[in-house]
């Protein structure tokens, strides 16, 4: 049954994916400059130009034909080649993806822990002004521009105290990971704290909680094993959305910290007007985004068996 559901979800997302490829194709078509010139240089005679056009089948088909070629190329040729390096876009992206993945994992872990713990504390304790403090914190987290927060962290930890490196990927050391991960994770930690609080408060007075209390189960265990598990669905949704967007290369964070991932690669491509790379990056990012959403749908059942897969 779950397999069937998965297949259904994948089929449902196909029209959206086709739409997404149409959008990136149109953007690529609208992009200024003729890609042929990138291949041969601008001083080329007309006949040679026609030969190359012939070779790459550019003239032969109409817009629909070109789109089909684009899609075919995507599966076979790795999303086309970069104008600058002439490597396939997919190989360049794949080379940088592990770094992006590492950063995304670490920041989502930070935001899950801090967000959920803050949320639980504010749902269950009566510390004066805690609510106001949380509101202020989350408002800041939502409104601060990521790039400014990152620079602010560099200012404090790298310039004033000089305890962490300001930028770079390093060779896998933790120290390089900390500041970018905090920058990236802070926003979703803010959202998560808010969501956890409301979600936990909604299950607070439920009968199974009272029943668990009656059986003499330790309050900590009630919170973690009974309440949290039931409050988890909206929290998981939020985590999934954020993780999905982290995975497509958090463009701003990676740029600020000089992190060698997908996002900073896209920015480099923007500066060089390397359109196949830009559109390939966008396409990859969107596909990952959609895939993560499907996985999240699937996770619901794991956390809450009451949900039926239809």
């Amino acid at each position, binding site marked *: 049954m779950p397999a069937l559901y998965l297949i259904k979800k994948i089929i449902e997302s196909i*029209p959206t994916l086709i739409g997404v490829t149409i959008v990136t194709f149109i953007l690529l078509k609208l992009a200024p400059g003729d890609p042929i010139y990138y291949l041969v240089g601008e001083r080329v005679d007309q006949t040679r130009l026609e030969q190359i056009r012939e070779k790459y089948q550019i003239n032969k088909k109409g817009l629909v034909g070109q789109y089909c070629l684009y899609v075919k190329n995507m599966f076979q040729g790795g999303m086309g080649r970069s104008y600058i390096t002439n490597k396939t876009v997919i190989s360049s992206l794949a080379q940088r993806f592990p770094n992006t993945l590492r950063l995304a994992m670490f920041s989502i872990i930070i935001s899950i822990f801090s967000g959920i713990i803050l949320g639980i504390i504010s749902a269950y304790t009566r510390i004066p002004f805690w609510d106001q403090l949380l509101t202020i914190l989350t408002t800041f987290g939502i409104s601060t521009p990521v790039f400014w927060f990152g620079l602010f962290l560099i*200012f404090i930890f790298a310039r004033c105290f000089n305890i962490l490196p300001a930028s770079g990927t390093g060779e896998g050391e933790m120290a390089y990971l900390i500041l970018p991960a905090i920058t990236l994770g802070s926003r979703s930690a803010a959202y998560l704290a808010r969501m956890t609080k409301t979600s936990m408060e909604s299950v607070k007075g439920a009968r199974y909680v009272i029943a668990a209390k009656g059986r003499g189960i330790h309050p900590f265990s009630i919170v973690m094993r009974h309440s949290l598990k039931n409050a988890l669905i909206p929290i998981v949704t939020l985590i999934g959305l954020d993780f999905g967007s982290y995975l*497509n290369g958090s463009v701003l964070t990676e740029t600020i910290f000089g992190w060698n991932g997908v996002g900073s690669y896209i920015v480099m491509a*923007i500066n060089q007007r390397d359109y196949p790379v830009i559109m390939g990056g*966008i396409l990859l990012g969107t596909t990952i*985004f959609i895939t993560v959403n499907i996985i999240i749908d699937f996770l619901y059942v794991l956390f809450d068996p009451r949900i039926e897969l239809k």
Partner: protein
Amino acid sequence: MKLKDFVFYTALTIVLIVVVSSIFSDFLMLYDPLKPDLTSVKTPPCFSHPMGTDDRGRDILSRIMAGGKFSLSIGIISTVCALIIGTLLGFIGGYFGGIFDSILGFMTNITFAFPSLLLAIGLSSIMRPGFKSVIITLAAISWAGFSRLIRGETMKYKNSSHIEAAKVLGANNFYILLRHILPLCSGIIITASTLQIGVAILTESSLSFLGLGLQPPDPTWGGMVSQGRDYFRSAPWITLFPGAVITITIICLNIVGEQLRTRLKRKYDGKK
């Protein structure tokens, strides 16, 4: 006065201060925001330059005021464009339904499938960067939110009895949408627009930061943050102040938007 009211009015005042000082920046600025002054390069914040000067000796405060004009007008104009497109399409989809609604649903789904900053980067990278390209980009990524909202509202109201009454009286669809449904949506439109202006300013500053927004020498808040990055160690104020202004403006816009939402909700619920 309750704490919430105090916060609301403070936020509103700050937004007004930012708006007024941006509109009248030509009169309020103490220095020319574009003219380099090489005698006072990278001056730290002091009495004559409250926020210091940048790497070409230009006064940061004057540049923030001048940049506010661009950032705010981009935020407002793009939101209005997105609102007009979104409302129109939302009306068509919600009121007439059928094939229009399916096409609209497909289009919004695709727009939502993209991570919004990535789509913004893709769109603005194919245009010549400038005022127009930023507005087109921002409108193109944010119309879908409005259209989904308006579509839902339209569907909610379209079968209510006062609409039926108007139909019986012979009102045509255009009249009904404009005079009966639009006023009902106005509360939600005002709230969503306030919040969207904040999002638009944030996205605009991100695009400027990446070099896809307005081009130098025109100052924008995001562009100023980006420009100061190279001198971050020697002159951190070049980046810190514009960033702080972005943050404060957006926080205040969010507070105003949220409060408007709860106030309007209370008002409507109270009437029922």
